[in-house]
Each structure stands twice: as C-alpha cells, then as structure tokens.
C-alpha cells in the first residue's frame, strides 16, 4: 500500500482554505497519495481476464487449469497462484469411484467376466445410477469443478472413506477437445487416515507428452 498523505482538514488553516484550494486539490486527486493499490488490483484483474479470455484458444491455458482441477500442476506454487482465478462450473468433469481398480489395471489378474458378469450395456451406463453400474464402481457423477473434491471434500470423505477398503478415483475433465484423466488410489494407513497416490495419468490430448509421462507414477 502506498504511504497515505491524509487528505483532511488538519493541513488547512481555515474553512475558506478547505472550501477552495484544498477541496479542489482533493476532488481532483492532487492532495492524495498515488494509489498504487488501485492500479495493482486493476492490473491483476486485467491479467486474469486475459488468461480467461485466451483459455478457449490457447490449449496450454486450458491444460493448466485442468491440471489445477486434478491437483497435478507442475508445482504447488504454480497451483496456488492459479487459485484466485474464478472457475465456477468450468469444464465437463466426470468422476468414477471404484472399490476395484480400473479394468485396464487388472488385465491378466482378474477374469474380465467377473468384472462385468452380465456383459450388459452397463459399461456405458451412467455410474450415477446404482442399478446400472459396472461391477467395481461404487459411485460417480458429473461434477461442477475440481473432480478431486470427491476425496478431499468432507462429503466425499464421508461417503467413500469411512470403511477400510482401498478406493480408486477415476477423474476426467474435458474442454473443447482437450482432455485430462487421472486415477488416484487411496489406501488406509495403519496409523489412521488415507494415503493418496496418483497411479495413472493421461496428459491432455492436445499436449505433447514429455518422455516418461503416462507411466505409472507414485507421489
């Protein structure tokens, strides 16, 4: 904040001074200290607005926001810097919560027939409908923003993490052709609580994958 030079009556000798010279100075701003805070806020707002306006046309901005939503930014600091950016009901975010790992993790380990015994259309059904869920899926839905809230938000902790069985959270965000998928595994800790591990990630489709990305990775 700038150092204030108080624009009040203390420096005036008489009401006449105030009514003429001082008032003129104040109303024109000449008596007030330069308002750096005002400019800083406007600059910050302009920068964030620019970021938002470019998001549909610059895939790396959308990807950065998706990584923010999936808690996968390149660093915590970069994630934290983006947090003041308003993102209400952004992207199409879908979640799937499983008590068995995603099917592609079980290849060769479990008979696929056991994962989908009736081999019905349930595979493509909405996981929000319990009667049509694939075996291994305990919940899922379209979510407004931050699909990771399924395990960090209190609701999700209560709904899915009350027992002692591990859970897998399959998260997907889509925006104008870009897509980011993440699978988090949560295992109970002996001392209480749950350990979060990112077990599978897929970078946004439009981005170029650096070497080694996309492999199983533990945090």
């Amino acid at each position, binding site marked *: *904040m700038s150092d204030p030079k108080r624009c009040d009556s203390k420096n005036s000798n008489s009401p006449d001074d105030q*009514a003429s010279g001082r008032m003129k100075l104040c109303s024109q701003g000449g008596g007030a200290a330069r308002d750096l805070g005002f400019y800083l806020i406007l600059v910050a707002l302009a920068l964030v607005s620019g970021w938002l306006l470019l998001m549909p046309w610059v895939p790396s901005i959308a990807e950065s926001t998706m990584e923010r939503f999936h808690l996968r930014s390149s660093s915590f600091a970069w994630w934290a810097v983006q947090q003041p950016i308003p993102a209400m*009901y*952004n992207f*199409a975010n879908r979640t799937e919560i499983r008590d068995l790992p995603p099917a592609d993790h079980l290849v060769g380990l479990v008979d696929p027939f056991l994962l989908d015994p009736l081999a019905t259309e349930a595979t493509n059904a909405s996981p929000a409908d319990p009667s049509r869920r694939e075996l291994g899926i305990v919940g899922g839905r379209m979510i407004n*923003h931050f699909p990771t809230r399924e395990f960090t938000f209190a609701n999700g902790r209560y709904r899915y993490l009350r027992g002692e069985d591990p859970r897998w959270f399959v998260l997907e965000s889509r925006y104008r052709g870009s897509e980011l998928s993440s699978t988090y595994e949560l295992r109970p800790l002996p001392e209480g*609580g749950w350990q979060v591990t990112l077990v599978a990630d897929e970078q946004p489709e439009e981005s170029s994958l650096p070497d080694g990305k996309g492999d199983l990775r533990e945090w």
Partner: protein
Amino acid sequence: MVTRESSRRMDDLPTWSSQTDPRLVLCLRLVVAGMLIGLLWKISFFLVADQLHFRIPIRDAFFPEWLQNAQVLRAAFLTSVIFLGTTLATASAKRRKICLPIALAANSVLLVHQGSYNDMTFVTVWWCNVWACWFAWRMSVDSSEALLRKSALVSRAILSLVLLGGAAGKWTQEYWSGEVFYEIYFRERDFWLFNLLRSTSDTQSLRVIATYYSQMVVLLETIGGLTLWCLPRRMAAIVGATVFSAIALMSNFWLFSVLGPLIGLSLVGLVGGPTSRSKAASRSLRRVGPWRSVIHSSS
C-alpha cells in the same frame, strides 16, 4: 469564532474532514457483511466438515504438510470470521486496517488448504477481501467522491472477472448442449425448480429445457463478464445484485455462500450517488471518458 456562514460552508465541504464519511463506512460494511454471510451461510456443513477432517485425514504429497492439517483449516476459518466481524463492528479506522489484512491472510490459507480449496466461496471472499483492504486504506487518503468512484470501478471489475471466470470454462460443447447441467441439476437435484420441472415434464422435454437453461447461463455470464465493468455504477450495482441473486434462486440456495460476497460488492455502486456538485464535475469530466476521470482522481 465560527460564524453561521462559515458553519454552512463547512457543511458543504466534502467529507475529507477528520470524521470518516458515513457513506464510505457503509460501503465497507456492505462488502464485509457480504463476506461474513458467505462464510457463515454453510456453517452447519462446515461444522460437520470440521469433524470429518479430523476423523478422516488424507495424506497427499501435493500439499505441504501444514496445509493438510485440519487444525490449520479450523484456525484460518475462525480467524477470518473473527477479524471480519471485528471490522464490521468497529468504528476505528486503525482497527480496520489491522483486521482486514489478517483476514486476507486467513482467507489466502483457505484458498489453498486441502480441505477448502475446491469451495468457490473462498475465491469470492478473497477478492472481496482484497477490495476491502485497499478501500480501508484509502478511506483516510482520498476524498469521498474520488474513492466512491474508484471503488465502484474496482468492484465492477471484480464482478466482471467472476462472471467471466464462470463463462470461459463453459465455452464448450458439454455446456452448450446442456449435458453438464442436466446431469448435475435436472436429473435428481432436490431443489424447487428442478423438482417442479421433473414433475411436469418427461425426460425428453427435461433434456431440452436443460439445454436452454444452460445456454441462458452461458450467455448471461458471458455478457455480464464482458460488459458489467463498463456500465454506469448504479446500473451495474442493480444488474450485479439481480444476476447473482437469480443464479442462487434458480439453481441452488447453497450458492449464496459464493454469491453473498458478490452481492455485497455489487451494492457498493448504489452508495453515494452523484450530488449536484459532482454532477457538474462529471459533466466536464465526461468529455475525457469514465476511465480518465477515475484514473485522474486516483493519481
């Protein structure tokens, strides 16, 4: 000795005398009250959530250790509420200048804590807190009219940004088709509007209504985000308060926690309408445009 004439002149003076202009105090209180409403709107949920954060902790290396700690989250929330409450109640400018930065620090923690990062309440509260810090600091520096003009512009710019933030993430097929809102709200959300629509429409009609609803939201946020900042301040205040109230009333009452602070910030534009003197001044300033007049008065 103060004569009747000089006393009358004193009454006509702008309020940069030793007394703080009550209009400025009202502006600040509107915004702080909005922030407190936002923070306390879901207090019943926050109380349960607080217990759950202790009973079901999760360890994620993405967050620094202290930002996974439930005690830190509880302390940050209480600090924010206590210091904003003090700001609302106090008449002391010095106390306001101490309380608001502390509340901003606490709200910054809430913005990035593992247990609260996903709640947009803390985003809108954070921006309002930035506004309030700046405003409280300038109350003793600027003339009332200059500060009312500048603060109205900053508030409009923040409101535009929030709407733009909502709009930009919806400029995608899944929102334009209504798919997202259909799944989040129309299919099974227990809310008066969606209950009413479900009871009177079949699935196919519901899907069509969801598309129109979603497109209306996208257009409303886009137009608001692009234009609200440049509307006249009273019109912007009325439009902002109406739009933000309508969003909550038509989709989810819980959203008042996110939108309450913004409604408070919108109302700033209603305080301190143009006086006959400032009307005359604005007529001369109009030649150089609204931006020049605000920026001139701030420098």
